[in-house]
């Protein structure tokens, strides 16, 4: 898919245990077909003070603040991961300018990244993430510059916090994106009645988990109608049925993040097997046969 050989259509979403080769290995042992690292930038970031996460009944709200050691430190982990993992290693990159995205991307690819996922959708850090991904012109510049700087596949992870995600998707593809990940987290908040204040130290964070699945599904469906590149579905997938729904909506692969908290690393194996069982039961020969199947029109 998009130039990568995936062992199966499940991938680890960015932000989950993605700091070190060792933890990524536990995820691969759990059956992930590819892994995406924590988002890394040019300079180190400490991230926000705690609370950085809120557990709700239907998902998590996080405002970590992109804590990462910066690409110059992180290349060590990339190299180590490339040596030990036997699935594609995709490095998630963010920047505060098109130049930064390109610089970090180049260093990540030099260290061995099989592909890059551009984080243009983090909803809680100023001047990067979704502030770039919400503006099709700026986004296009970033994608163009990154594509011009490396030879590896470049995925763009889209924000749902926009009026028309299909429009942003088209801009990203026109600028050269090889695949799109839909979606990043949804801007959200939690307020504690006892303390009478927002819980997150950053006040606003990104919602993930089961609560966002219907939104993510809708985004994948809408994007599929407008673009020809592969779409990677992400948002609230916890079991094989969720994954199949995303494939039917138009995704060629899925990412799983929040569900790892509830189900552990083996969630990848479970989902992968479930997809296989569904395909067999429905007499489909491959995942490709069901991608976008829900779009076919029915006689009235």
């Amino acid at each position, binding site marked *: 898919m998009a130039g990568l050989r995936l062992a199966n259509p499940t991938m680890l979403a960015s*932000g*989950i*245990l*993605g*700091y*070190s080769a*060792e*933890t990524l*290995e*536990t995820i691969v042992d759990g059956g992930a077909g590819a892994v995406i690292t*924590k988002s890394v930038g040019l300079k*180190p*970031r*400490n*991230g926000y*003070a*705690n*609370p*950085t*996460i809120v*557990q709700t009944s239907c998902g*998590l709200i*996080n405002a*970590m603040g992109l*804590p*990462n*050691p*910066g690409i110059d*430190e992180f290349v060590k982990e990339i190299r180590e991961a490339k040596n030990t993992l036997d699935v594609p290693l995709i490095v998630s990159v963010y920047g505060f300018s098109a130049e930064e995205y390109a610089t970090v991307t180049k260093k990540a690819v030099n260290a061995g990244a099989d592909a890059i996922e551009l984080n243009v959708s983090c909803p809680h850090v100023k001047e990067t993430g979704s502030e770039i991904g919400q503006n099709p012109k700026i986004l296009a510049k970033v994608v163009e510059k990154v594509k011009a700087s490396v030879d590896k596949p470049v995925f763009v992870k889209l924000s749902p916090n926009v009026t028309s995600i299909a429009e942003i998707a088209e801009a990203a593809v026109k600028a050269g994106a090889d695949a799109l990940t839909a979606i990043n987290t949804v801007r959200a908040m939690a307020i*504690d009645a*006892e*303390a009478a*204040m927002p*819980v997150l*130290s950053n006040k606003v964070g990104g919602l993930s988990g089961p609560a966002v699945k219907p939104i993510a599904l809708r985004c994948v469906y809408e994007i599929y109608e407008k673009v020809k590149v592969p779409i990677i579905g992400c948002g609230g997938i916890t079991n094989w049925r969720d994954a199949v729904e995303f494939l039917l909506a138009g995704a060629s692969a899925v990412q799983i*993040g*929040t569900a*790892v*908290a509830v189900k552990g690393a083996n969630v990848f194996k479970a989902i992968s097997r479930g997809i296989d069982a569904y395909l067999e039961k429905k007499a489909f020969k491959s995942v490709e046969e069901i991608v976008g199947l829900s779009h076919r029109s029915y006689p009235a």
Partner: protein
Amino acid sequence: MLWIPGVDEIPLSILSANEDGTISVAVKKVGEATQALHNKKVGETVGIRGPLGNSFTLKEGKILMVGGGTGIAPLLFLTKKLASKTVKLTLVIGAKTREELLFLDDLKEACGRGELIATTEDGSYGIKCLATAPLKRLLAKEKFDIIYTCGPEQMMRKVFDLAEKHGMPSEASLERLMRCAIGLCGSCVVGKYRVCRDGPVFTANQLRDVKGEFGVSKRDFDGKRIPLE
């Protein structure tokens, strides 16, 4: 995880869990969050997420506990949990000064007819030495069924090394910077283990896996590996 609204959210070990559903924690004033806790008055509100992580395995027989500083708190809790079991307790506790030697009376009581060895770095109480100093003699003369330890990591590393040398099982309660505290973000990892979810208590088998990091290094706020002070 304990939330001080408007300040921070920090991981703390439980000191006691009571029948009425209340819990207590022991907090040393080391920074902004702990200072804020020290400033709180009875009746004020803090937030809680938990309980999280695992606990010491309850064993029977000859038990050695080695506690340093605030690490003594979860060990005191452990003695309460072991009360119903057939155990002979030996406690070695250490702190910088007499003032920081916590819960001495409770520990003496928990020890019963077992041995309690207290040490302070400045000699203001008990033997003037580190908590690990009496261990060489202790482990040479007695075979313990398990050694539990909690306190400064370099102290726990020494305890683990000695336990390994004498072929005795050990369990250590580690701490790391925590954010999500539910095993997702990776902030608290030691090797492949997440201290918040796979720990904070680790068995000797697990500690062997992470000998390169245990007592040696930790990850900073930005995820970079830095040496333990």
